[in-house]
């Protein structure tokens, strides 16, 4: 040790390492990256979406093209997934089914989210009697088994793609409304809202800068997890004959057609069923991963 060692350092000499604190998004992303299942989910969903959008254009056949001579053919070079009982190429029908099922999942969920957000947002913000009244209605509607109503609605509307969007959309918004309202109610009481108000921030600013960003997490998670629900409900509707109309093919239609020919031509069931299951799994993993990552309380040291 020398004399120099003990000389005091001038303030300027100290290079402090400033590590900016991680934002919630960064921590969330870091946690997601570690979650292998969530990554698998992202990959699956992306691949399926790509296939759905681009796939049918790359196929030489269309989903409605019938070739009765070639009916019930096993998978071959000409028909990768084989053909169905009317000679339609199964591969393109599965891809087309991806389009339909994914779009149903997405559109229905988005409609749910919009209605739910608006309804829950108003209830939460208004508070008091308005809130109680609005939530009473939700409670009453909640007690009704929704699937029954979706079925009845489809009977009234007649099967068809747009009608499915509408029926699913208006039946399942209740959960989202409850979640959004709950979030807004708890956020209203938070200290930082009080702090912002005491600084003179306007209500609109509080809503957009403080409250909505905090709602985004649960909303996204619920949205992601309700997509497989919608896809499943559509599959179920198709199964009992209330889904999209022929020759349009959703995975539900394909699987129900496949079940009836399960014994003789199992591949007609296997391909659409596998596609359906993989996609649902993908969304589940993604939704679970998002939920774990975005919940601030989950980000404790040494979780998992």
């Amino acid at each position: 040790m020398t004399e120099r060692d003990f000389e005091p350092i001038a303030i300027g000499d100290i290079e402090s390492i400033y590590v900016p604190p991680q934002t919630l998004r960064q921590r969330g992303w870091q946690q997601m990256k570690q979650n292998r299942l969530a990554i698998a989910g992202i990959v699956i969903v992306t691949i399926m979406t790509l296939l759905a959008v681009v796939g049918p254009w790359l196929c030489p056949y269309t989903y409605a093209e019938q070739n009765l001579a070639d009916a019930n053919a096993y998978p071959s070079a000409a028909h990768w997934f084989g053909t169905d009982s009317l000679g339609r190429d199964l591969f393109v029908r599965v891809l087309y089914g991806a389009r339909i099922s994914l779009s149903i999942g997405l559109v229905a969920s988005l409609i749910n989210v919009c209605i739910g957000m608006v309804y829950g947002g108003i209830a939460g913000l208004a508070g008091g009697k308005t809130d109680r009244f609005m939530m009473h209605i939700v409670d009453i509607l909640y007690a009704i088994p929704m699937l029954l109503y979706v079925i009845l609605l489809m009977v009234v509307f007649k099967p068809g793609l747009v009608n499915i969007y509408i029926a699913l959309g208006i039946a399942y918004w209740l959960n989202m409304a409850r979640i959004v309202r709950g979030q807004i109610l708890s956020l209203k009481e938070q200290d930082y809202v009080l702090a912002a108000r005491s600084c003179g921030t306007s209500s609109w600013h509080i809503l957009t800068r403080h409250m909505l960003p905090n709602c985004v997490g649960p909303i996204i998670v619920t949205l992601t997890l309700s997509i497989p629900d919608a896809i499943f409900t559509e599959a179920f509707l198709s199964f009992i004959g209330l889904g999209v109309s022929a020759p349009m093919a959703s995975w539900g239609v394909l699987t129900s057609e496949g079940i009836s020919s399960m014994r003789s031509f199992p591949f007609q069931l296997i391909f659409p069923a596998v596609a359906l299951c993989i996609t649902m799994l993908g969304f589940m993993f993604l939704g679970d991963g998002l939920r774990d990552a975005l919940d601030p309380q989950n980000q404790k040291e040494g979780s998992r």
Partner: protein
Amino acid sequence: MKPLLDIRNLSISFKTYRGIMEAIHGVSMTVAPAETVGIVGESGCGKSVTAHAVMRLLPQETAIYSSGTIYWDGQDIQALSENQMNELRGRDMAMVFQDPMTALNPVLTIGSQIREGLRLHGSVPAGQEETQALALLQAVGITSPEKRIHQYPHELSGGMRQRCLIAMALACSPKLLFADEPTTALDVTTEAQVLELLSQLQKKSAMAVVLISHNLGVIARMCHRVYVMYAGVVVEQGTTEELFDGPAHPYTQGLLASLPDPDHGDKELQGIPGQAPDLFHLTAGCRFYPRCPRAMHICTREEPPAYTLSDTHNVRCWLWCPERRNMT
């Protein structure tokens, strides 16, 4: 006199999703029977981790005991099995936690939670448990204990819950009580009552207490000796008088200087500039130097060893290095 608790050179790390983080480094502490020892420091400095480590309450999957030994009554307790550790916990050593709201099981009555401790360690003959529980509740100053014993935690106030926690911890008359920020969640009046209660109970049963707090006032009032921790390291230790009258480490000096002075009401409040270091990105050298008003060049290179100032007073700071004394 043989110390009751002897921690030697304990280092503990945690596995987190950001990597492995060392929470405490080379911590050594002793506690003698019937002594009150304080551990003071900022949030995150490792005070709780030390106490939890002794009682083996750290999450097993993520905690790594990288080095050091813990001696209880002369015996190395790290070698004990979980069953043996269970016998120690509650009977010989107990802990009172910070947040009385979450520290009690909401679906069990207060009485059943107290009786559980009594039953586990066989301190009272069977059948006597209820009377003993009532006596405990009374000893901690809870009015109408016969009513309280059948109530659930959510029916009691914060102060009462903390008293119940103390009652549960003391049920089997442990030799050492860890009080992990026992009054941080309470208002000032209740805090005074709880502290008074703790010192009474301690005198009655000659129990050692390790009081963990970031509140210097509480420490000054209750403790014989104090350990000052910063960023996982013990930077200074001494008796309360030594520390408060002649703090040796710049961090301790900063802590004391930041206390408001009631005699000089218009004096500006002094803080310690800067922030506690990110334990994932530690620099070489002393952990405090980025915030130290008396940092020297050597502080940026090497961690200071502990220098003895008296029988009871140690400090980890290059300022007290004998070579430096000789040079100036």
